[in-house]
C-alpha cells in the first residue's frame, strides 16, 4: 500500500516537473517534500523489518545455543564428578562465547562445593578469566566494572592484587566494587593495606566503605580492626570509618580501644561518633568520661555526652546543672527532655 502511494506520488511529481515552467511553484515544492518524506518512511520501515527479523532470528539462535551449552556443561560436570578431571568439554564457537560465559557465571553464583569448583575451572579453561583481567584495564569504566563484577563471582584469592589495583581506580564505582571484592575474597587481606585506600573515598561512599570494613571484620574477627585503630597512624576520615564500624558492631571488647582513642586529639565529628559508639555498648562505670565531654567545645559532642550519662544511669546533679546553663539550645532542650522523663519515671 505504502509502495503504491509512493509510486503514484513519484509519477505525479514527474508529471508536474514535465509540465512546469522554469520557475518551480509552491505546489511542486510541497510535492518534492512529500515524495522525499514518503521515500524516507518507506526505507525506514524496511530497515525496521530487517532489524526485527534479525533480532528474532538471533534470539532463537541464542536460546537454542543456550540450551545446547547447558546440556553440554551438565554432561561435562557429570564426567568431572566421576573422574575429577576436565573431560569432554563443550567445543566453543567463537560467537557463542558470551552465551557460555553467562551460563557459567549464573551457575558459579548459584552453586557450592565441587560443582562450583568445576564451573570456575571451566571459566578459567575457556580463557574468560584472562579476558576479564584484560578488560579491567579498559579505558571505559563500564567495561572495567562489568569485568570486575564477573571476576568477583569467582571469589579467587589469586585475584587479590588485581583488586588492590582497582581499589585505587579513578572511577568511584569501580574502586568501591574492587574494595567490596577484596573484603570478600580471603581471610588474609591486610587491613593495614586496605584502610589507606579507603581514605581516598569521598564522603558519599562512607556507608559503602563501612560495609566493607564490617565485611572484613566478619571475615577476620574484630581484633584485626582494633589492632589497626590502636597501632596505626590513621587520618581522621579512616579513623572515623573504623569508629563508625565499631559503633555498628556494638561489641564490648571494643571498649578499651574506644577509650584509648578518646585520649587522642580527635575532630569534633569523630569525638561525636566515639561517644555514640561507647553509648551503644551500654552502661559505663566511669561517668567522669562523659562529664569531661560535657565541657567540650562542640555542642553535638556535649549533647552526645549527656545522652551517654543518661544511658549510664542517673545524671549527676552537678552535670545536670552545668548542662542547663549550656550555651547551645539543643543541649538545654535535651536536658529538659531528660529531666521530664526522669520526673515521669519517679512519679
Amino acid at each position: 500500500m505504502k509502495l503504491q502511494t509512493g509510486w503514484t506520488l513519484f509519477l505525479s511529481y514527474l508529471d508536474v516537473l514535465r509540465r512546469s515552467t522554469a520557475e518551480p511553484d509552491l505546489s511542486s515544492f510541497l510535492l518534492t517534500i512529500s515524495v522525499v518524506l514518503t521515500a524516507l518512511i518507506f526505507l525506514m520501515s524496511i530497515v525496521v523489518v530487517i532489524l526485527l527479523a534479525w533480532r528474532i532470528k538471533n534470539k532463537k539462535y541464542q536460546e537454542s545455543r543456550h540450551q545446547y551449552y547447558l546440556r553440554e556443561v551438565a554432561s561435562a560436570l557429570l564426567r568431572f564428578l566421576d573422574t575429577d578431571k576436565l573431560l569432554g568439554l563443550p567445543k566453543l564457537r567463537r560467537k557463542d562465547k558470551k552465551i557460555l560465559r553467562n551460563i557459567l557465571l549464573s551457575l558459579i553464583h548459584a552453586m557450592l562445593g565441587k560443582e562450583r569448583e568445576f564451573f570456575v575451572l571451566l571459566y578459567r579453561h575457556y580463557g574468560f578469566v584472562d579476558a576479564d583481567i584484560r578488560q579491567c584495564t579498559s579505558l571505559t569504566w563500564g567495561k572495567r566494572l562489568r569485568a570486575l563484577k564477573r571476576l568477583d563471582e569467582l571469589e579467587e584469592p589469586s585475584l587479590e592484587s588485581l583488586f588492590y589495583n582497582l581499589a585505587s581506580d579513578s572511577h568511584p564505582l569501580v574502586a568501591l566494587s574492587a574494595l567490596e571484592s577484596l573484603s570478600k575474597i580471603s581471610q588474609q587481606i591486610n587491613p593495614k593495606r586496605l584502610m589507606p585506600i579507603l581514605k581516598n573515598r569521598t564522603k558519599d561512599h562512607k556507608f559503602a566503605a563501612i560495609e566493607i570494613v564490617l565485611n572484613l571484620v566478619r571475615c577476620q574477627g574484630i581484633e584485626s580492626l582494633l589492632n589497626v585503630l590502636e597501632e596505626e597512624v590513621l587520618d581522621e576520615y579512616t579513623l572515623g570509618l573504623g569508629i563508625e564500624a565499631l559503633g555498628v558492631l556494638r561489641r564490648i571488647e571494643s571498649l578499651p580501644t574506644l577509650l584509648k582513642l578518646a585520649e587522642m586529639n580527635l575532630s569534633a565529628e569523630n569525638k561525636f561518633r566515639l561517644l555514640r559508639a561507647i553509648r551503644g555498648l551500654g552502661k559505663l562505670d566511669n561517668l567522669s568520661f562523659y562529664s569531661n565531654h560535657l565541657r567540650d567545645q562542640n555542642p553535638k559532642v556535649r549533647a552526645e555526652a549527656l545522652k551517654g550519662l543518661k544511658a549510664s544511669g542517673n545524671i549527676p546533679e552537678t552535670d545536670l546543672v552545668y548542662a542547663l546553663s549550656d550555651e547551645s539550645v539543643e543541649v538545654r532542650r535535651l536536658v529538659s527532655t531528660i529531666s521530664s522523663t526522669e520526673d515521669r519515671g519517679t512519679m
Partner: protein
Amino acid sequence: MRKKVLLVDDAIDHAQILKAVLEHSKLFEVVHTRSGLEAYQMLKSKEKFAMLVTGINLPGMTGYELLTRLNAEKINLPTLVLSQKQGQEDVMRGLSLGASYFVSKPFSPTDIMDKILKTLSAGAKP
C-alpha cells in the same frame, strides 16, 4: 526402581544442573516444571511423586502457596524448599508448612541429593 522427584524452579540453568546430577545417580527420575500452578496440577493428578523440590518465587503460584494448598488437600509429600532468601522468617515459614529441609542458594546439587536421600530413607516426613 528410580524414585520420581518433582522439581519446581524457574531458574532453568540451576534446575537443569540439579536435574542432571540427580538423574546421574540413577536413583531418581526428575520431572521439572517452572510454574507452581503446573506443579500443583501434576501433584493432584494420578502421577505419583516420591518427593517435591520447590523454589519460592515461581510464576503462577509461589512455593509457599503450593505447600499451603497441598497441606489443605492433605497431599503429604516430603518436601525440600530451595530459596534465594535465607532469613529466619523464610526458613520458619518453609518448615512450618511441612518442608523437611530449607536450602538457600548457593547450594551444592550433591548436598541436595544427600538431603533427598536422607528424607526418603527417614520416611514421609521427619
